[in-house]
């Protein structure tokens, strides 16, 4: 577990953060710019001495102002990937990668594995100023990984990149999650990075941690900022159960929920899917012939009306999962959608985004 308590008064704003997050796994700190995300990263790394700090990672206390304990950054073994890669310009890529490795105690993360994971073998003899932005960021990630950190901090590592470069790096980050049983704290204000990477999410607003929890919960909680967005969606992690080559469909399953999607080519044991709230249809009975494959039996958990736009957001519990449906105010009345009411959620197979492919 990572425990963080942080209070700091800046000239204009104050930071008052308190959250615990499980390890291993990826925790995404999500919030608009100015919410204090980067300050949190600096404080965890020890580069910012906050007025009041308590940081511990898996039982190792890194700073505690109550006992006047402050471990200097060079002893914390926290790998940091900064937004501007910060590669050392007087060293080639190989020397950059080995900088932290040479100074770290022996650890499980091997040079060749990292080079292969990040696809940077061809860059080893290059100088940082000859690299593209995306290449630089990959090298920076490798350098931090090889310092055998107890925790990897990533401060908006994709924010300086254009969309194609982001798309180039995101798969590497997804693979990184699966490679090392390494806790990661990832800072971003981009929703696609949150949905692709987060296991746990910490929502930040104006220097405060509003809520902390598993992404699958936080994403669908009406009343929180994620569900209030127009692109609100449920994020589910499902087992790849079986393929049907005749119908060209794949069956995905989790506790009490199963979904049919167009057949997957990749052979991964689990996939993460995104079901947009706008794409979910609610019904009390299903017509006999319908193109929709997924008719899910559920129970309404909450209904949140948006009176200004004559719409409502409905939370539906299906098995242990929750999905969101955005419907008109009229539909809520016609179907008598109130908490506890049974309902059918219809999800078109092609409206399910497969995120991990």
């Amino acid at each position, binding site marked *: 577990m990572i425990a963080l308590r942080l209070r700091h008064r800046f000239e204009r704003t104050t930071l008052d953060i308190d959250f615990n997050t499980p390890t291993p796994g990826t925790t995404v700190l999500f919030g608009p710019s100015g919410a204090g995300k980067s300050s949190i990263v600096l404080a965890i790394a020890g580069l910012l001495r906050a007025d009041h700090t308590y940081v511990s990672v898996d039982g190792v206390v890194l700073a505690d102002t109550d006992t006047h304990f402050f471990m200097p950054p*060079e002893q914390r073994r926290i790998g940091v990937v*900064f937004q501007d890669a910060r590669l050392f*310009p007087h060293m080639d890529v190989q020397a950059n990668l080995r*900088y932290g490795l040479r100074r770290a105690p022996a650890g499980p993360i091997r040079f060749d594995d990292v080079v292969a994971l990040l696809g940077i073998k061809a860059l080893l003899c290059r100088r940082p100023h000859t690299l593209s932005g995306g290449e630089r960021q990959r090298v920076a990630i490798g350098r931090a990984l090889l310092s055998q950190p107890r925790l990897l901090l990533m401060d908006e590592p994709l924010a300086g990149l254009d969309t194609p470069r982001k798309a180039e790096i995101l798969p590497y980050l997804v693979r990184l999650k699966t490679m090392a049983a390494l806790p990661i704290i990832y800072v971003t204000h981009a929703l696609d990075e949150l949905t692709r990477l987060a296991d746990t999410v910490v929502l930040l607003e104006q220097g405060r941690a509003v809520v902390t929890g598993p992404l699958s919960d936080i994403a669908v909680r009406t009343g929180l900022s994620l569900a209030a967005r127009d692109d609100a969606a449920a994020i589910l992690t499902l087992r790849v159960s079986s393929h049907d080559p005749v119908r060209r469909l794949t069956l995905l399953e989790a506790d009490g929920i199963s979904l049919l999607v167009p057949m997957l080519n990749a052979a991964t044991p689990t996939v993460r899917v995104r079901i947009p709230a706008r794409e979910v249809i609610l019904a009390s009975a299903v017509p006999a012939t319908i193109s929709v494959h997924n008719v899910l039996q559920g129970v309404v958990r909450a209904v949140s009306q948006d009176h200004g736009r004559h719409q409502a957001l409905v939370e539906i519990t299906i098995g242990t999962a929750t999905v969101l449906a955005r419907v008109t105010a009229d539909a809520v009345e016609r179907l008598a959608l109130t908490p506890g009411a049974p309902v059918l959620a219809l999800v078109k197979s092609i409206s399910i985004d497969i995120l991990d492919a």
Partner: protein
Amino acid sequence: MWQALSPDEWQVVRLTLAVAARAIGFGLPLAVATALLLSRQRFFGRGLLDTLVHLPLVLPPVVVGWLLLLTFGLRGPVGAWLFAHFGIRLVFTTSGAALACTVMSFPLMVRAIRLSLEAVDPALVQAARTLGAGPMDRLVSIVLPLALPGVVVGAIVAFAACLGEFGAVITFAANIPGQTQTLPLAIYAALQSPGGEEVAARLSLISVTLAIAGLTISEALGRRLRARIGR
């Protein structure tokens, strides 16, 4: 023209280069340390040190030479101590000439080195910290290599300045052929003796050549070193 140089004149050139080399060899590590101190630390007496370092730039060189005499002369506090304990005498010696050059060129070195130290991106130093590098380690592996172009250029410019140092050298170390008579002092001596204009002209030409060579090398080297770190 080179054939026209007499053995005596060759000796002057060699001595001048030796004095300048010693001056830089002794002064450079001190200049790096001073520049580090001035650029990073806040400490009591920092302003005083800053002023002291820059004093030779604004004082008449003769005054510097005289102050050196007062301090390092055989009856000066430091000079007497050095002679009593180590048998080292600085006045009227080659080492004395080098010391005078060190003091005079010191501000040039410190300024150049300090500027390049302050140009090192603190973000890179932070990154090195998170990768496990302690203070000394960061200095050696990040700060100094990145500041190297400034250090080298500063040293070469100071070297060139040492070749031409006159007032402080003649005051502190006197004008002794073969010991303290560097190029400018030899030119001065030649002009003082009847019919010495030709010797003075030849030596002056050498002086100009050395100065231009120094500046050219420093410029080229600085550019190459900066290219290595991608600036």
